[in-house]
């Protein structure tokens, strides 16, 4: 496994050029090479959704992609959501998760936020069933989902307010 490849990609608006092994998982690349530890690896086999990020506008499991497959891609991780990544400037979705107590241990939260960001961009989310269906690829073991659904519901309302 000595072969390496050069990749160039944009993560949270920053362009990176790196040399990586072809077998390096994208989640490990983000966490170890870029030190963006907000993205979490929960199962490493594509079920739990904790590692969800956005690649070229679509939510993706970063444990099911190699870093080399992201060559030339535009990636957003949880660190991109708050203004300047600051804990003092949460975006409306993050605020809604906080107000509704939509997180407990916080480990699935980055994946939940990135999936929700993608859902809010693409789908009407008119009913709670639709929200639950949209979140069904992300496991949470703490919240029982109730408060997460409420948080996304509020974010849907805010999205509609801002569209008026």
């Amino acid at each position, binding site marked *: 496994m000595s072969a390496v490849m050069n990749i160039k990609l944009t993560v949270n608006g920053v362009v990176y050029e790196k040399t990586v092994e072809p077998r390096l998982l994208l989640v490990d690349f983000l966490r170890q090479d870029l030190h963006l530890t907000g993205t979490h690896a929960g*199962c490493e086999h594509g079920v739990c959704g904790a590692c969800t990020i956005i690649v070229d506008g679509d939510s993706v499991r970063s444990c099911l992609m190699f870093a080399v497959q992201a060559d030339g891609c535009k990636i957003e991780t949880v660190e991109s959501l708050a203004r300047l990544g600051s804990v003092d400037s949460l975006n409306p979705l993050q605020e809604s998760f906080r107000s509704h107590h939509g*997180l407990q241990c916080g480990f699935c939260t980055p994946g939940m936020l990135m999936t929700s960001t993608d859902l809010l961009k693409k789908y009407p989310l008119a009913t709670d069933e639709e929200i639950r269906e949209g979140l*069904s690829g992300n496991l949470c073991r703490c919240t*029982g989902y109730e408060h997460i659904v409420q948080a996304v519901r509020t974010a849907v309302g805010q999205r509609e307010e801002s569209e008026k």
Partner: protein
Amino acid sequence: MQTRPKIIGTAAKRLEDPRLLTGHGSYVDDKTPAGTLHVAFRRSDQSHATILSIDCSEALKMPGVVAVLTARDLEGLVKPVVATSKMRDYHATPIYPLARDKVRYVGEPVVAIVAESRYLAEDALEGIAIEFDTLPNVVDPEQAAAPDAPLLHEDAGTNVIVRREFLRGDVDLAMAAAAIRVNRRFRFHRKTPMAIETRTYLAEYDQGRKSLQLHTTSQIPGIIRDVLTDILDLPTVRVVAPDVGGGFGGKASVYQEEILVCILARKLGRPVKWTGDRLEDLSSTSQGFDEIVEAELGLDEQGRILALTAEVVGDIGAYSIYPWTAGLEPVQVVSFLPGPYRVAHYRGRVRAVATSKPPTGPYRGVGRPTSTFVMERLMDMAAQKLGLDPREIRLLNFVSQEEFPYKTASGIVWDRSGFTECLTSACAAFDYEGQRAAQAVARAAGRWVGIGIASYAELTGIGSRISASPGMPINTGTETATLKIDSTGAVTAAFGVASHGQGLETTLAQVVAEELGARLAAVTIIHGDSAAVPHGTGTYASRSAVLAGGAATLAARALREKVERMSAHLLGVTAAEVMVADGFAFVPGSDKKISFRELAKAVYSEVGRIPAEARESLEETKLYDPFFGTTTCSTHVTQVEIDPETYVIKVQRYQVAEDCGRIINPLIVAGQVHGAVAQGIGAALFEEMVYDEMGQLLTASLVDYLVPTAVEIPSIGVSHLDTESPSTVGGFRGMGEGGTIGAPAAIANAVADALNHLNILIDELPVTPERIFQLIKNKEK
């Protein structure tokens, strides 16, 4: 500022959230110091086998490999971990970091490979060759309990690791006299806690200071510190549990990998990390309850309970886990079986049996998910025989307010709790009558709709007079709080608890802020660090709000008095005239006022302002011991519908009413209930660790081990009873586990109700479409 603001009881936003929402949390795997080495484990692929030889020569040649170790390499470096107990008829099973001589479950660590990266360490696993001599598997717990069964631990001389009996009254006579008797053999299959964060450990050794620091995904850093100091014979060990991604009991024991990274860091002089993967989590993290219960309930013709008997076999897996012992889970099944009911005559017997599977350990609810499943099924079976509504038979048998404190048949004391009130409140919120009427309509239309009730009581916030696990020699019944106002006026409060999702940084700050008179956002809670307080054990057993909340209350009150005394000097009044609120000491009705910051400056820096003999450091340490603990109770009511063709069970309505005493933060309480109910629904319908007759795990990924998603979990209603515990400082009761206790029983009763017309009994969980199919098929034969 005349009246102090109420902070306890408000839905304060969590203080830990901003960092967790922005990706700035600090979980163990987020930390990788320069020079860190990574460990991969070659684990046993045999259930029970002698290790004949291990050849590591190929692995040692592989790129990036620094060391390869087997049990032989650890001789003299570490003592085994032994979970001792005062229980009679108990056999401890020593645990070594790597298997010695033989393996006892698939997944047991045998060889540790240390390399420059996790990738390289895992590559080198291919270079290990182990020769096993297969021994007879010990998979079935009832067979394993037989006198001639092959032994897992030869030194124990038996696979029955714990044996216990609870007896009250003349149970055989009372049972014989019972007008109504219901009995059944119940089975609750093995599950796994499955926190989303896998177990991860990072050890760093400072050779100059001979001091070891371990970062661990643990619920019990204080216990880990104490045991590491002992088995590694080190003078200074600090154990830190930073942000931890869920535990549910699975991170509440001492683990082999945890000990091993410490040995390696000391031996190799570099930081050593192990990050478990999901397969390792599923096959080596302590698992939850695995029990067979044969139980009988005898009642009079009105439906009053006369007698209860139970024979429990608990499959505890390969080892008696540290520190809880193998008695923790199965013994609590028999000690809690009588539940919130008056049971005059009781006999509960339990055997905890070792098998060649991963150890079971604490799992959310401990013992009570099974005891409640069994007792609540028996109550419904009896109600049906008597023609009573499930609600009525419970109301008839609950310990009433006049009877508290009530000593149960197994010796547990219910101090005071709202058993009846919870049932009434849950049924009202559920619209029980309305839903029963709707069910009748649905049934008439051929739909399989069922309603289930489950009530339970649990002991929480256990103090020093009762061990968190029967006979366990370590003290889990006290908690220390150290509060400080430092020279900048900042308030910190340190505890021995270790929050891993419960929001203790917020709820304990609420208690401190209110009792001290500080601003909520100005209080920093230090937890999960063995160096923070002299003794601490962690967060488990629904103890933290009660014990740490109590210690926080006592320490904050004492510190407030100090603030009053010191401020009195500066404001020129008596201490009795000073009030403290919102980070200020002040004299009501005057402009005399001083901030914590100014006060701290006067106390610590401007030393002339307070007479030397009166000057006191602004800190307080208090220990709190609730002695016995307090009773938390709840009723769950649910409605399910089963598809008559696919047998898929859909949970449609769910209501909980609970008495958790004085509520610190209603949003956090609701979140704990929702999450615990979801785990209980998982245990009832989906989650099962399936082992074949060879002891091989068949549900070794999250594709096969089904964790409920947002689609399977319904919206969950929660009603809180507004009470205060009579037994604890602050009036708090513990409530983190309850949902997992009530949900399996409520779902089982609802499924049984939905299938009532087919004359099918539910006695096995999880109840899956496959199991319903088999039950119906067998009935048709």
